[in-house]
């Protein structure tokens, strides 16, 4: 059995969303001449955005069920895959427009993917620009067990531990949805703590910084104290940075515990109980034999969740599992960990 926790169906184009927008927003799209939501997170021609063999001659990668089935679900023998639709909704400055488009994206995913392909599950895209509207969107889909997670981006307006976002976590916890934080940015702030970089290489590498910041924020602000059953999944975050970051965070927490007295366990313990990470990309050491040592530093075999990151180009062929993984860990990563993480995955959907 294989559970792929991070795949990225594309919305074919903006017109595909029109049937799922109400009349007002359809009119706005027409009047404004809106054509596409292009985020620089995954520029269309960047090699990372789509593997060469997953890049169609016409149209976008992963934009049809035929592509998704033929390139991702079938070759990897995938039993379940979680769709994380990255469509630039978070970049908008209009809260209402963001809410309308988030709803349209979720409706398209439900009707055109989930209704037609039983192996697919999805994350709920939310208009994070307005927490009340984001909660409304969660409530709209919470009754549909095929939605297993709420999707946020690694960089937004504020660190995600801030209390303004807690109603989102309350809604997620109420409905046993995980919070998925995916690489990407609203670009309302520079994508690095040091300011705007010049090159895409810098941008993408710096995603790990953003994840580290979010992880610290969620822990230090006490999100896991308030919602002890909440699981946060870091998606396309990379994970080999995790031990070093937690060594650092734990060290300073020990000395500055008085700032955050509600954090009564070490950050390492909190991560082991409440945080999971998707497998791809694996930014491993040059010698794959050393990867096992990195895994040992995680001090848990429950943290990693299998992902192909389809159609992003993280590996070739079917080598989604990096070499160097202990055999005992493979089944945990492929099946046991995803099932333990996503409460809704094991629920019947019929």
């Amino acid at each position: 059995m294989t559970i792929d926790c991070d795949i990225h169906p594309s919305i074919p184009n903006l017109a595909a969303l029109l049937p799922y927008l109400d009349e007002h927003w359809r009119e706005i799209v027409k009047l404004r001449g809106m054509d596409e939501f292009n985020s620089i997170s995954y520029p269309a021609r960047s090699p990372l955005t789509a593997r060469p063999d997953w890049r169609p001659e016409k149209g976008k990668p992963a934009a049809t069920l035929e592509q998704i089935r033929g390139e991702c679900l079938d070759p990897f023998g995938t039993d379940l895959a979680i769709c994380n639709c990255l469509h630039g909704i978070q970049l908008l400055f209009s809260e209402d427009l963001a809410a309308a488009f988030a709803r349209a994206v979720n409706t398209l995913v439900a009707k055109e993917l989930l209704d037609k392909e039983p192996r697919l599950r999805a994350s709920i895209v939310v208009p994070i620009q307005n927490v009340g509207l984001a909660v409304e969107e969660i409530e709209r889909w919470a009754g549909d067990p095929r939605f297993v997670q709420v999707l946020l981006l690694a960089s937004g307006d504020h660190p995600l531990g801030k209390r303004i976002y807690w109603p989102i976590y309350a809604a997620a916890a109420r409905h046993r949805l995980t919070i998925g934080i995916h690489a990407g940015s609203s670009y309302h702030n520079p994508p690095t703590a040091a300011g705007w970089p010049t090159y895409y290489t810098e941008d993408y590498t710096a995603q790990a910084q953003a994840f580290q910041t979010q992880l610290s924020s969620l822990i230090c602000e006490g999100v896991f104290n308030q919602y002890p059953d909440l699981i946060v999944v870091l998606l396309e975050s990379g994970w080999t940075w995790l031990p070093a970051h937690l060594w650092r965070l734990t060290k300073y927490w020990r000395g500055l515990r008085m700032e955050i007295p509600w954090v009564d366990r070490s950050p390492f313990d909190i991560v082991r109980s409440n945080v999971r990470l998707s497998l791809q990309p694996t930014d491993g050491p040059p010698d794959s034999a050393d990867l096992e040592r990195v895994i040992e530093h995680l001090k848990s075999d429950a943290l990693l969740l299998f992902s192909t990151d389809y159609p992003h180009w993280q590996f070739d062929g079917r080598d989604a599992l990096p070499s160097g993984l202990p055999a005992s860990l493979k089944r945990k990563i492929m099946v046991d960990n995803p099932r333990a993480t996503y409460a809704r995955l094991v629920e019947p959907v019929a």
Partner: protein
Amino acid sequence: MTQHVVAPVAEVPPGSHKLYTVKGRPIAVFKVDGEYFGMLDRCPHQGGSLCAGVVSGVLVSGKPGTYRLERNGELVRCPWHGWEFDIRTGQSYCDPAKIRGKSYPMSVASGAAVSEGPYVAETVPVRVEQDYIVVEM
């Protein structure tokens, strides 16, 4: 175990702490609410002097954003890296199960009792009319 005379009680007034050497070991003596507590003056982390640390209270929190300072004067924070220790027990707050400071039982004995023994008063001249801080080690 032997009872060692540390100092006359007047040397460590309420709310203060002071460093002594007993049996060649540095012992930080704290006075909290009329009781004396002794800790080895080496933080179990990297050996910082606990006696040079800030004495404060135990900060507890029922939920994020709430702060309640309890038992003020009963916690010492190592000056090197901020690790906190319960003055009464030596228990750490960063890893209570694994890390604790070394505590020594302290008491007060009268000068008369100390003069009779079996106390060891290495460097402290004992006068019968005074009370003394005594450590067992």
